[in-house]
């Protein structure tokens, strides 16, 4: 087949890129080769727009065993235990087919984690939908939630935390990010780097079908009116087969048979084989007629680009084929030697002994294009919105309005659809600042949380980037964990647009600054560009997934008030920043103000002091203060336990709204027993931390002296009805 301009366009390759391909090959590619280039040079695989900026992120630290570049990041949690984790997007497929898109998103990220030798122990997700009034939102929400649950529940890994947000910026492009966390032995970690010439390359797992051919290109193409035509690229997930694949791989990994292993994710067989060869500085030869196929008459092109799920590629030590095969057969999975490593540094594709394609490996990997895309600094508006100029409202009405909004409503409707307890190590389920998972059979545990803040990032990308890392850090601190490292999923619009590229570059600057200061390195991640439709891009939405360690696990720390008559302390200074806040957004529909400043010195100092207090067992409950300010934080603590509060009116600040709803950073609420108060204050003073004693817990009523009084039950009602009524 002659390669025409139309074919090139269809493959999403720019004409410079095509010229470059011809130069590398010193000839015209055939269709198969063109397809392979298009998959590998695609944004999704090559990170061509983002790589330059990603390189600046801090990725090292004492706790890091493996940073970005492998299937997932690996950190050290002491003894001989390692935690392996990563987050990934599945935005575009989920918009087209929410159930299967979300399900296969979970399946994909799980493979990234168990490929490295980890048994997955927790799943998280970050899901963003358009306005609840948009006609598609309800079915997308339903489909995505049941898809995430459908996969995780079936495979038997608890889904323990996440975030769910609504904003009309996602009307035409929802976000579905899934994160998986696994546990492995430090000396039993598996990598994708091939080693040795003439080793068997083995295909295991499901058969190859015509699923998602060009899915990777789809994930990097903007939606337009014709996106409905891209339908057939959506894959159907098979969690049952994945469970078998996972058990089979983990069983084989007990032995020393595997040289390297790689899941077939985006761009399937192509990217997995190229990556293994590239990392090992080798070539690879595949006999495509041996690939197990689901459909008749599949072509080499289809086999190489299929994105059928639940498949892996393994390079085996000599003589291990029989043993390995017996394991996969036990689990009723395909196991076929489809090729071998070579020292030609080429990807050689044969079909019935005829060579049907040959491409130098480095052309697909290290020589893939990298762009230094133009980017513009964000113009920050100086507009100040003062509460004085706004129409009069009441504190209680505002609180109720926030608590009953979709973004702040209780998420039980969602989390009850996820099995959170399977594996019996979930010490703390969804609903708190972070979930806690015990390491099986040990006394230690990890804490996990995901966070994002598109509004903050939109109005001030650097501060927004800084803030989400800090918020995530704070959420882990709040449950008594020492934050160790993060993974990040960067959801942005079209990188060819300098404004969008600017948002990307600046958000990363912010992320970098926080990560460096907090010694909270990035060990894995994923970039999703081209989120948006018809030139309307989504707000920048980097999502941070963090993992922390609880070394000596005694009892879970959370934000549920435990007792009446304990003292309530806020840690960190309240200035009353409202310009970008839940109050403004939910009550006044203003969402373009500047986000609160992030002071990293205070962040670290306050956090470490709180962690110290938790570790000293001086506190009953802890909650970070985030969206909605002090009042929403207190309400959340009350609603979990039906214990009320009696709060004193602030003295110095004139404006109560600023005090109670302000979103200044680095703050926490602590519930402290009377008799621990002295010791807590001592730690706070010694650490130079600003704190205020603002009141006490009491029976059943949520009260600010001489200002509001309402029963906690009523707050609970307001907070728990949106989803069921939607």
């Amino acid at each position, binding site marked *: 087949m002659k390669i025409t301009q139309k074919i090139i366009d269809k493959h999403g390759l720019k004409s410079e890129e095509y010229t470059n391909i011809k130069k590398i090959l010193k000839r015209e590619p055939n269709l198969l080769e063109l397809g392979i280039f298009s998959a590998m040079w695609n944004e999704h695989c090559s990170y061509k727009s983002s790589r330059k900026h990603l390189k600046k992120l801090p990725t090292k630290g004492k706790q890091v065993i493996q940073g970005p570049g492998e299937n997932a990041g690996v950190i050290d949690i002491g003894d001989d235990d390692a935690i392996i984790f990563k987050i990934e997007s599945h935005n575009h497929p989920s918009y*087209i*087919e929410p159930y*299967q898109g979300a399900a296969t998103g979970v399946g994909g990220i799980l493979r990234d984690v168990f490929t490295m030798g980890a048994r997955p122990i927790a799943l998280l997700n970050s899901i963003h939908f358009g306005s609840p009034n948009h006609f598609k939102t309800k079915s997308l929400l339903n489909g995505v939630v049941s898809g995430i649950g459908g996969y995780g529940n079936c495979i038997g890994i608890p889904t323990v935390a996440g975030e769910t947000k609504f904003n009309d910026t996602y009307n035409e492009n929802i976000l579905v990010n899934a994160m998986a966390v696994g546990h492995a032995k430090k000396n039993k970690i598996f990598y994708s780097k091939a080693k040795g010439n003439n080793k068997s390359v083995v295909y295991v797992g*499901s058969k190859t*079908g*015509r*699923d998602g051919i060009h899915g990777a290109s789809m994930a990097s193409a903007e939606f337009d009116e014709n996106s409905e035509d891209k*339908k*057939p690229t*959506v*894959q*159907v*997930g*098979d969690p*049952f*087969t994945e469970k078998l694949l996972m058990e089979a791989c983990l069983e084989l990994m007990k032995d020393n048979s595997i040289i390297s292993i790689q899941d077939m994710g985006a761009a399937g067989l192509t990217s997995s084989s190229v990556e293994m060869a590239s990392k090992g500085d080798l070539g690879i030869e595949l006999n495509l007629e041996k690939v197990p196929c*689901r*459909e008749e008459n599949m072509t080499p092109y289809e086999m190489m680009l299929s994105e*059928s*799920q639940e498949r892996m590629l393994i390079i085996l030590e000599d003589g291990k084929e029989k043993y390995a095969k017996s394991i996969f057969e036990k689990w*009723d999975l395909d196991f076929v030697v489809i090729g071998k490593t070579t020292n030609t540094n080429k990807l050689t594709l044969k079909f019935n002994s005829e060579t049907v394609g040959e491409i130098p490996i480095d052309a697909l990997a290290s020589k893939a294009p990298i762009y230094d895309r133009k980017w513009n600094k964000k113009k920050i508006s100086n507009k100040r919105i003062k509460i004085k100029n706004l129409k009069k409202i009441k504190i209680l009405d505002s609180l109720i309005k926030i608590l009953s909004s979709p973004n702040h409503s209780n998420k039980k409707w969602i989390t009850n659809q996820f099995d959170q307890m399977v594996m019996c190590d979930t010490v703390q389920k969804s609903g708190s600042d972070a979930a806690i998972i015990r390491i099986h059979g040990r006394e230690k545990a990890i804490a996990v949380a995901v966070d994002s803040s598109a509004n903050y990032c939109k109005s001030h990308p650097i501060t927004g980037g800084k803030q989400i890392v800090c918020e995530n850090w704070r959420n882990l601190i709040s449950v008594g964990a020492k934050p160790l490292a993060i993974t990040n999923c960067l959801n942005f619009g079209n990188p060819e647009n300098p404004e969008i590229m600017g948002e990307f570059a600046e958000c990363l600057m912010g992320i970098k600054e926080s990560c460096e200061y907090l010694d909270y390195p990035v060990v894995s991640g994923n970039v999703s560009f081209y989120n948006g439709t018809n030139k309307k891009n989504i707000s920048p939405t980097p999502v941070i997934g963090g993992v922390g360690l609880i070394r000596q696990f005694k009892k879970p720390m959370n934000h549920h008030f435990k007792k009446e008559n304990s003292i309530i302390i806020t840690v960190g200074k309240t200035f009353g920043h409202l310009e970008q806040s839940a109050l403004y957004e939910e009550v006044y529909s203003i969402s373009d103000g500047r986000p609160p400043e992030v002071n990293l010195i205070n962040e670290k100092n306050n956090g470490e002091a709180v962690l110290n207090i938790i570790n000293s067992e001086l506190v009953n409950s802890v909650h970070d203060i985030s969206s909605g300010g002090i009042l929403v934080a207190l309400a959340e603590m009350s609603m979990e336990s039906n214990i009320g509060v009696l709060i004193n009116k602030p003295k110095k600040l004139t404006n109560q709204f600023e005090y109670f709803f302000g979103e200044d950073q680095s703050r926490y609420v602590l519930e402290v027993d009377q008799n621990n108060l002295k010791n807590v204050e001592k730690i706070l003073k010694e650490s130079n931390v600003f704190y205020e004693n603002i009141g006490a817990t009491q029976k059943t009523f949520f009260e600010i002296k001489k200002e509001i009084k309402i029963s906690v039950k009523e707050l609970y009602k307001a907070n728990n009805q949106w989803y069921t009524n939607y």
Partner: protein
Amino acid sequence: MKLISEKQPLLILRKNKLKFSVTITLKKDVLDPQGKVVQNTLQNLGMDNLKNIRQGKYFEIDLDDNDQNEAKKKVDDMCKKLLANLIIEDYKVEKI
């Protein structure tokens, strides 16, 4: 009921329950994990001649309507709006 005309009393008076069946099947190249497992199980149970099974959905729908064509259109609409996911499924409506 006020609109009954002399000419077609029967058509309207008869409580007009129309019944349709809808079968929904996965598109050809779409993976059918359920069908696959069912097929393996039956083969393991000794059903050798079995070549292929695909699983789908089935609905029986009762409508109160006078006009069969109209009604069929409505069922068609239901399929498009809710019952079938046209991205991965095909559907067929039949009067029963």
